[in-house]
């Protein structure tokens, strides 16, 4: 594949033509906020709306997970328009996320915290009120890991891990609008579903919606995967 040269924030970068900008930037240690991006996915879902960048010559910010790199393009990861969209998308996600970082198993390892840190955003609501809505009870039926939908950001990483990596198909997206959720077929408990407890979905979760219940969690934080032990 042919290589192309272009710039991100003025830095000259070479990458294979057609590769999506988000992954090229991350590879070069240029941070762009993202939750739903999956590098292997043929057609990115582009649902989280956090990875906006500005390309010289284009009037509006575009999502970098869907942007193929081109020869000579000049990309900026921080502009007033980009920052405004990221700030709004982030605050919108927080408004529907149970914000009790101290009690969250993902505290300090959470993608939302990383975005806040990198972009100087606050982990609290500024303009918006929290959406008061009911979530199904925490599903800890597997005794290995738990699913708390009040922390879910609907990024779909767990669904990809379950369906495309583990090839199990225990979970998927269901319902629509504000009720969109990750669920098992008919919403049964995970223990009753085809779930094999492989833990790939838990590892994939960037926030604290899926978390291990026993010591395996600590192993994960130590950088080990708990897969073999379950």
């Amino acid at each position: 594949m042919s290589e192309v040269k272009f710039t991100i924030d003025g830095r000259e970068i070479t990458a294979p033509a057609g590769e999506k900008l988000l992954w090229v930037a991350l590879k070069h240690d240029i941070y762009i906020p993202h939750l739903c991006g999956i590098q292997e996915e043929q057609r990115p879902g582009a649902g989280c709306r956090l990875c906006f960048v500005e390309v010289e010559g284009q009037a509006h910010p575009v999502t970098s997970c869907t942007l193929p790199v081109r020869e000579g393009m000049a990309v900026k990861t921080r502009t007033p328009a980009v920052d405004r969209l990221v700030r709004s998308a982030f605050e919108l996600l927080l408004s529907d996320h149970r914000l009790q970082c101290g009690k969250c198993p993902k505290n300090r390892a959470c993608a939302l915290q990383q975005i806040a840190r990198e972009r100087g955003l606050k982990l609290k609501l500024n303009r918006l009120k929290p959406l008061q809505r009911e979530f199904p009870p925490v599903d800890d039926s597997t005794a290995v890991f738990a699913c708390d939908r009040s922390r879910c950001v609907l990024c779909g990483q767990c669904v990809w891990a379950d369906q495309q990596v583990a090839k199990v198909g225990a979970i998927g997206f269901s319902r629509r609008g504000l009720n969109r959720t990750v669920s098992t077929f008919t919403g049964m408990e995970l223990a009753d579903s085809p779930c094999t407890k492989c833990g790939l979905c838990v590892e994939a979760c960037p926030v604290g919606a899926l978390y291990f219940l026993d010591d395996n969690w600590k192993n994960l934080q130590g950088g080990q995967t708990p897969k073999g032990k379950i």
Partner: protein
Amino acid sequence: MSMLSTTEKTYQELRQKAEAKLAPLADKPLIWIGTATCGKAAGALEVREAFKEELKNKGVDARVMEVGCMGHCYAEPLAVIAKPGFPALCYGKVDEGLVKRLVDDFLVHDDPCYEFAMVALEANDIFPTFADFPRGVYEEKIILEQCGFIDPEDIDHYLAKDGYAALARVLDMESPQVIKEVKAANLRGRGGAGFPAGVKWEAVAGQAEQTRYVICNADEGDPGAFMDRSILESNPHLVVEGMIICAYAVGASHGYLYIRSEYPQAIRRVRTALQQARERGLLGNSILGSDFNFDLEIFAGAGAFVCGEGTALINSMEGKLGLPEHRPPRLSTAGLRGKPTVLNNVKTFAYVPLIIKKGAEWFKNTGTPGSPGTAVFALAGKVANPGLVEVPMGTTLRQLIYDVGQGIPGDKKFKAVQIGGPSGGCLPEAALDIPIDFDSLKEAGAIMGSGGVVILDEDDCMVRIARYFLKFTQQESCGKCTFCRLGTRHMLDILTAITRGEGKLSDLETLRELAEDVQAGSLCNLGKTAPNPVLTTLKYFYDEYRAHIKEKRCPALMCPDLIAYYIAPEKCSKLCNACVGSCPVEAVYTREDGLKAINQGKCVKCDNCLKACPFEYNAVIKLSPPSLLEEKERSTK
């Protein structure tokens, strides 16, 4: 005499057969009844049965024929009587009594009952035609021309009116020539976005992949829009012919009509149309004797609004969740099953046979240079003559509302026009002289959209209207992307608070910021356009928002939390009890002096007492803010 090609010869035979079959129709009286969904809802089926019954009773030899919709919703159910020796006459608001009179007076005797006739269908010396009314002057029916005048369930009616002639001509042309003609006509997609159809077709025709699809988007979901349904129910073959021509132009051998299941009658009539087209060799293998093969089938959509969006429509056809995808790739490169796909709206396809028949130049003679042709609008709301109208692009909103729609009923004042469906914008009086086309509407903050036009008068609260439309898009959001899923919800919450008098001025700033961000940041066009009603009302009716927040006052007296009902003692009569009986919660009571009053604690603001109060008293009035009540009560004590 020039030599006829095979296709032309095959077509002429079909047409002659159709004409021969229909010729005897002119021998005896013919009664047409508009039985599209709109007519049926108004009682057309009962009218049809009444005619049949009465004809039998009186022993009159006449035919009853079902047709589609003429677009005059205000006069449904409609019937047309064509009796040899008389001009064909159209009667509106037909009921069983009128049926009896028409059969007896007109069909048995020769009195056409002009006092009940609405309009004559052909020029004559006695009775006015559509062209003699203001609406007829401004209207220019191109794709609606045959709607309501032919039997949609009999292909021969379409064939006899030159139907499928364009297809016969196209089959003798080279396919690039067909695309060239559509491109030259600058036919812009009538689904709302206005993308040039010819450019789309060319992109599909130029793909290396040889399997291609043609899909007609009939997932018409906007509240108040019914033009696609009406066309499919009234003249399905026009759309089918347009699709076959498109398939020939782009080299597709299979196509679909994506019709929402909420349109059962449209599905039924299209299915009949496809069946009859197949029987006549107009669909299937070797169309009209040529070597071109194409077939069409119906895909019934399950009724999600978002599935009208192209990528979501494709996903739902493939059995996946009906969620939109990021574009590119465009459908023209990777559409249904990853193959190049033309997706056009019902109306776009309907123009195609006419452009082929009459030429690109003819098409461009109507409308504006940037948006040639006509636009079909569903006029609704506070307008005297609601209905389906087709006017040239470039007609002003003022002409559309005051000449075609005959203005605002009653002595009410025009306030705004909401154009483009729930994703459209609300334009004020000052915008009435904008010539309507794709570009000018966008500039004003509205969109052409589906063509829904809702007219609002002084009794409509703009905050509530914005909330109403946003509520629709919020509920129809698929939930895939952050901005649309959560942004529209927060906007809705803010609007709800304002209509309850719980808003703050700073909320308006948040509302505007959110609206702009949802517009800029959403994944698909549902989210990108959802804020339009909010942004346009904030721009043009800011004072109304302010009044709700600062004065807790609803200027249109519409928001229940900001109004109070009050019975003016000086107008009320001891002799009348109408309001007391109308109240569902016993809030209205009789005072010691016999006059009526309202217990505000019980009142649920249902408006019944105001409607019940007889015209001669008009004693029930609405007050906003409710605090005015104390003042009133003090002053009358």
